């Protein structure tokens, strides 16, 4: 029984893959451009089957808020970490509520059941 549990843990441990998006509560601060606010997010990809993530900014009702980041679709390798600069115009600063990253699945992927992950941080 113990051997079976260890085998299960080993198999699961080797297979598990994760998505991290930090910090939980980012703060917007003035950027070097007048009237533009910025914050820095960090994306970590340990999902072997995922290479692309999209970034989005939303208000409290989940409507899209205009923002700038470069690029908006991030290509990120397995076990890679990426710092993402988000820029918002001051007129959208108080409207923006969530900053989210979402895994993108290539149309060529034909797994029977695919899991898409999305993590949203809340602007404080």
């Amino acid at each position: 029984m113990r051997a079976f549990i260890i085998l299960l843990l080993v198999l699961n441990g080797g297979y598990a893959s994760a998505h991290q998006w930090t910090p939980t509560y980012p703060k917007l601060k003035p950027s070097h451009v007048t009237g533009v606010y910025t914050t820095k997010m960090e994306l970590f990809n340990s999902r072997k089957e995922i290479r692309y993530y999209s970034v989005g900014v939303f208000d409290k009702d989940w409507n899209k808020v205009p923002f700038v980041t470069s690029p908006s679709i991030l290509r990120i390798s397995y076990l890679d970490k990426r710092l993402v600069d988000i820029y918002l115009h001051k007129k959208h600063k108080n409207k923006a509520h969530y900053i989210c990253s979402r895994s993108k699945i290539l149309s060529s992927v034909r797994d029977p059941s695919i899991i898409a992950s999305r993590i949203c941080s809340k602007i404080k």
Partner: protein
Amino acid sequence: MKKPLIILAALLTAPMLVSATTPISGTVASKCIVTTDTDGVYGNPSATKLSTATTDGGVLPIIRYDIITASAYNAKVTTPISFSSSPSLGSETVTWTGSTVANQMSDAGMSVFNTNKVVYNNTSEFPLTIAGSVWFDVSSVATYGYNKAFPAGSYSAVVTAECIAQ
């Protein structure tokens, strides 16, 4: 004569021993980690049904959430209501059902996640009020038309796992 020499040797080597220590530092930040523990597989127990239930020959997708800070995030799991890829299904309707349950947990108190679960449309939302790791089992069932057989081919559907800061 020997004793002072031994003491001198001990004094000389002592600083070298102290300098061999190497500090390791780290920070634990509040975060939510979404881990795809097991990808699901649809079983085909009858011609009209695709199901991830083990009893139907499928494999339940399992998603793990690691929470560093209690009451900082909500977990949202959305089961599929369409295939991301499939053979042509014509005009027949596919009926979808699905559910999500916290099955394994690092803290027994996390069973409250199931009690406080809110279900709307095809989404289950769990307030993550206790820090630790929790594994959610996701079930998905697709039934085709009225006693119609699914056309042969491969079928894929997407489960969405979200972690939303509170």
